[in-house]
């Protein structure tokens, strides 16, 4: 989850009329988790579905609502510019690469290091989350005063050159994609074609190479007061969603916003509010409350939305940056937040029902009790284990192994098709503990079968200086008899894990349901165990579950 740093004095100024303690106490009720708190700052985690909380202005707006300082929508005022130069013209060739573009001019703001830091953090969070690592959409923020409007959004060959941000000499597109980190990270988005998207100004200066990097020409510094924001992407709704978050943050920071026309829609057209109808009875039923429509409207307004009542329905107006709101149920949550979760008192559902455990759980409990009665202690292992333990050390057949892709942990790459190998691994880690060591485990095993079959298995091992076949067969027979009056046979077999002549298949009726034996000395050696081990494994799903 993304994290944002809030400087308390700045936040207090932005919120206005609220004590420090009141502000800090209210943060969790906006859905923000406090990660770290010092005298100067607080670090909070916010949900990726609320990118407007990536800056302190966004959070201040939310706090103002909850604390009742300011309610209702903070309207986006985007001035239409009569100047025809406030436009981006799109070249048809670029539509095949990264088709959508929107832009905005923000004037008369004040930048300092903290604000620039927050804008960059906001940009990065939007790139990562909503923009899906820049694939759906990406943002460029520029110093407007170094740009001659209008802009053109065009396709350029890879030998096109410009000075990229943070560099001081010209580089070709190919060089940028091959040598710069951002180039390497995001070049896949552009596909394999020979042309790339580029934004140029009217003087043919390169402004931006979306979604990779800006030009050094338009680098934003603390002396700038006028900015240009452009958003490009593959998904039109994501492009306007992202622009709306940027617009709302910049307006909150004190900039005046101006529209930029594009071929299809202007940015102002894209950032309009929408209205969702809300049934007050649904709100009350879902939350278990009995609120009047007027109260519901007030709570929505505390969440910085607008709401009015028209013929018994609530008409809720939603600003463009709240694209996390899909429908009425999302508004119910807003009402809950406006009401204050701390004010909701728990009740109990009136329905009565009788609970019960699953049959499998009951059976496994019974089997476990008998194993404990026989002196075996319960072990628990991961079902995701390693080829080493499962096959190499035990000499078992690995031809049907089921593997997961790109595991971050070497010990967890293969789904177990047997529990016994893991138990030998347990014994190998306990060689300094007192013997006899007797362990059992019940759990899921996996086999390849259109596509995967899951069965519940029971395994046990007995390790001590006198451990042997007779002992473990006694355990096996006693278990099956005591648990379910099942008689089993042990039929001579071969199994690479067990010693020759000291292993058998376990047969119930005519069906093989498991294996039993003395573990092969080579396998014991592989696990660095120093005493004899015998054991068995039964696929319970095949006969008792």
């Amino acid at each position, binding site marked *: 989850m993304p994290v944002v740093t809030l400087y308390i004095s700045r936040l207090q100024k932005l919120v206005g009329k609220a004590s420090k303690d009141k502000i800090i106490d209210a943060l969790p009720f906006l859905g923000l*988790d406090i990660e770290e708190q010092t005298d100067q700052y607080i670090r909070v985690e916010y949900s990726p579905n609320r990118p407007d909380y990536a800056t302190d202005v966004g959070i201040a707006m939310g706090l103002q609502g909850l604390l009742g300082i300011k309610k209702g929508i903070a309207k986006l005022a985007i001035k239409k510019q009569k100047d025809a130069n406030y436009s981006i013209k799109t070249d048809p060739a670029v539509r095949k690469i990264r088709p959508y573009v929107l832009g905005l001019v923000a004037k008369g703001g004040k930048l300092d290091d903290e604000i620039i830091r927050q804008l960059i953090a906001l940009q990065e969070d939007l790139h990562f989350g909503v923009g899906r690592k820049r694939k759906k959409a990406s943002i460029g923020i520029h110093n407007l005063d170094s740009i001659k409007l209008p802009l053109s959004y065009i396709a350029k060959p890879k030998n096109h050159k410009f000075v990229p941000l943070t560099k001081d000499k010209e580089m070709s597109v190919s060089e940028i994609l091959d040598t710069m980190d951002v180039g390497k990270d995001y070049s896949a988005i552009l596909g394999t074609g020979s042309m790339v998207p580029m934004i140029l100004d009217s003087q043919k200066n390169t402004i931006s190479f979306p979604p990779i990097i800006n030009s050094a020409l338009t680098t934003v510094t603390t002396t700038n007061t006028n900015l240009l924001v452009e958003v490009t992407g593959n998904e039109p709704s994501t492009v306007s969603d992202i622009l709306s978050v940027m617009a709302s943050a910049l307006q909150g920071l004190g900039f005046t916003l101006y529209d930029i026309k594009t071929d299809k829609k202007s940015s102002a057209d894209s950032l309009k509010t929408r209205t969702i109808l809300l049934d007050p009875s649904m709100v009350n039923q879902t*939350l278990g409350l009995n609120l009047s429509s007027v109260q519901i409207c007030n709570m929505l307004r505390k969440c910085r939305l607008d709401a009015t009542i028209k013929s018994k329905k609530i008409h809720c107006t939603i600003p463009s940056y709240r694209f996390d709101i899909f*429908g009425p149920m999302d508004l119910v949550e807003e009402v809950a*937040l406006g009401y204050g979760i701390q004010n909701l008192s728990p*009740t109990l559902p009136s329905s009565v029902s009788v609970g019960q455990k699953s049959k499998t759980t009951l059976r496994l409990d019974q089997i476990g009790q008998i194993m404990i009665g026989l002196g075996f202690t319960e072990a628990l292992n991961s079902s*995701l284990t390693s080829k080493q333990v499962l096959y190499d050390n035990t000499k078992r057949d690995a031809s049907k192994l089921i593997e997961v892709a*790109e595991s971050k942990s070497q010990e967890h790459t293969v*789904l177990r098709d047997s529990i016994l190998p893991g138990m030998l691994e347990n014994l190998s880690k306990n060689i300094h503990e007192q013997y006899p060591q*007797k362990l059992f485990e019940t759990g899921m095993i996996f086999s390849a079968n259109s596509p995967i079959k899951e069965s519940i298995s029971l395994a046990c091992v007995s390790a001590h200086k006198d451990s042997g076949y007779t002992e473990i067969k006694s355990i096996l027979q006693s278990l099956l008899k005591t648990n379910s009056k099942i008689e089993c046979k042990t039929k001579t077999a071969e199994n690479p894990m067990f010693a020759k002549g000291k292993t058998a298949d376990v047969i119930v009726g005519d069906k093989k349901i498991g294996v039993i034996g003395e573990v092969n000395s080579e396998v014991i050696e592989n696990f660095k165990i120093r005493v004899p081990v015998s054991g068995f494994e039964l696929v319970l799903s095949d006969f008792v579950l």
Partner: protein
Amino acid sequence: MSLVLHPIEKTIIKLLQSEKNLTELQIIEKAKLSADQTRRGIEWLRLKNLAIVTETEQIFLTLGKNGLDAQKDGLPERKLVNLVADAPVPFDDLRKKLLDEMNIAIANAKKNDWITIAKNDSGSIVSLKKKPDQTDEEKVLAQIGQNKILQNQIKDLAALESLKKRPDYIILESVKTKSLSLSEQAKSVDVDAADSGAIDVEADVPLIYAAKTHPLKDTINEIREIFVSLGFTEIAGNLTQPGFWNFDALFTPQDHPAREMQDTFYIKDKLAKDFATQSQINSVSTSHKKGWKYSWSLVAAKKMVLRTHTTCVTIKYLAENKPSEARVFSLGRVFRNEKVSYKHLVEFNQVEGIIIGKNVSLRDLMGIQTQFYKKLGLTKIKFWPTFFPYTEPSLQTMVYNEKLDKWIELFGMGIFRPEVTKPFGITRPVLAWGGGIERIAMLKYGLNDVREFYNNNLSWLRSTPKCQ
């Protein structure tokens, strides 16, 4: 009343009937008992009033470094008279030979009246007055020699005191010894006639360990019992699931970061077959297209994953049974592709319960939650809003932990989004809640490292008490 005596007691009594008074060491030696048996035997006899234990302190003497040197080379004053034995020697020459011992040698020799000191032009000169015999101090030094002897063996206490004043000549060591004599009653006991049925009931015995369930399993069972007691019925499902049930059915878009291999385990080369009905697939795909505005892929939905939560079991149950009224829960292993650390496992247990019903509300969900925690012994709880992709509204529980003196996040909860339930024709609200079990077990067992649950370290398994 006949006396019951342990063989150890009999041995000691017999010995004391002939020897009257013996120290612990002497008993060990003469009775051929171990130190531990002797000590225990003495204690039993004392408690039965059969023996009287007296503790005596003895002081042993040995020579310190300076004492050993003096015993070998003579006391400083002896060295001095030896140097001037044949002819007077100038003061300065003596100092060169005696070094640090010069002052003490001159002082003692003069005090004993062995030497005279005369002054001439070139300084002082020392000459022998009379050749002394062996002094009392020298006799004591010789008596101790290399040995450790009892202080009361030295008769010349004045000489000993004077040696004690010299630095590092004599080392004193105090040893407390228990000695044992028989009480009047015991003196007349006929040992051979006494019963010898008693055993050493206080001796250490070999350790054995009771076999038992795994501590994590105990927590799992406890939680399962709580769910059942709250009226929930257990359901189960596969650990391997098609992306469809793990993600798509829960309205998680196919390009969502949680679906990437970095977070989720995909099973290599496995695609699900017949995993859902055509109408289920159609309605889920429509819901995605409408809500997320992208082209939904059937192949992505078929890819097999290790389930990342138990919610896939819940939604499949809802889709297949369409209950109008129910309380069910599922509990089991879930998987995340994470680096294993003290706080993260790739595989852990999760539990999730749902209530579906006509008029169930968010407050009911909070109420059932409160009951659940109460049964776990957690009474100080609060709720905070949060975000989960498939519930709306969503809350999380914060529970106050006395040991850690802080609020910690436990289970999450919410009402299934209409985008999740509507495609399967479920119209009534579904209250859902759940979370990881290891986190609760860690609090219960006071563990800081979650890996301990799967290490199967026998000393931990054997020593962790069943009752927590």
